[in-house]
């Protein structure tokens, strides 16, 4: 009983998050048509962003960095067009293309 309880606790404590977040999904795209990391960085830098790093999430490029308003943000970009879809600052959404299009 004691041992199984401890094992259960250790098991639950060993699960880490920060993988697929499901926060935003981009439309299905052909992986071959995706912009490369360098292209994404160049476009954003030209628009006044500072890019720290990026990863794939929900079929988008998820970029971590600083936006032109100097806010520390995470941005979801359309992987083919490079258009910014969603921007969140520490978990608070500050831009959502779905609202912007309304």
């Amino acid at each position, binding site marked *: 009983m004691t041992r199984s309880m401890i094992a259960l606790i250790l098991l639950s404590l060993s699960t880490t998050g920060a993988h697929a977040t499901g926060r935003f999904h981009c439309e299905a795209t052909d992986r071959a048509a995706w912009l490369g990391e360098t292209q994404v960085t160049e476009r954003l830098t030209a628009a006044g962003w500072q890019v*720290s790093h990026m990863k794939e999430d929900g079929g988008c490029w998820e970029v971590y960095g600083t936006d032109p308003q100097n806010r520390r943000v995470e941005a979801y970009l359309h992987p083919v067009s490079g258009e910014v879809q969603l921007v969140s600052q520490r978990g608070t959404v500050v831009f959502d293309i779905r609202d912007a299009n309304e």
Partner: protein
Amino acid sequence: MWRALRDHPHTLWGLLTLPGVVFLILWLASGHGGAGRSATALLLHPTGELSARLMVVTMAISPMRHVLPGSDFWRWMRRRRRYFGVAAFGYALLHTALYLADMGSPGAVMSEVALSAIWTGWLAFLLLVPLALTSNDAMLFRLGRYWRLLQRLTYPAALAVLAHWLLIHDGAAAALVHFGLLAALQVLRLRNTLKPMET
């Protein structure tokens, strides 16, 4: 031999400091301030998560004593609960320092203090400060029964940590697993303490 080593205070201190040493090596090895993802930003998440985990472990000790009263392991843990609490604060302090370093300026820090994910983090940290400052034997002795009362700040601090973790949105599932487990243990303890009164 094993028992002496296990019960030596330095052994536990060493174990609890070990992740900090690993973080330091990672930080030095990745050439902080260089191009790409800075080591400061890289360590922000693991230090916060470790602090929260240690907090959950610390707070699970009492309920576990109720659930498994005969367990030698949890009796051993109970005697060392303060070590875990202080370690949780240590990593929270490191987490806060890394955040400040990553933001780079007081203006930048102030610009996001009003965000719910950030002020909950500050609140949790500020609630833990008096607990850390009074964690030594001298303060325990001097405060007497008020020391236990003061320790109850742990509960609002834990709620603030949970809110901070959920709102920062960097692994909500992990946050819920940790605190869900703790909540379940607290419910079990509450049931155990209430039971004798019913009969």
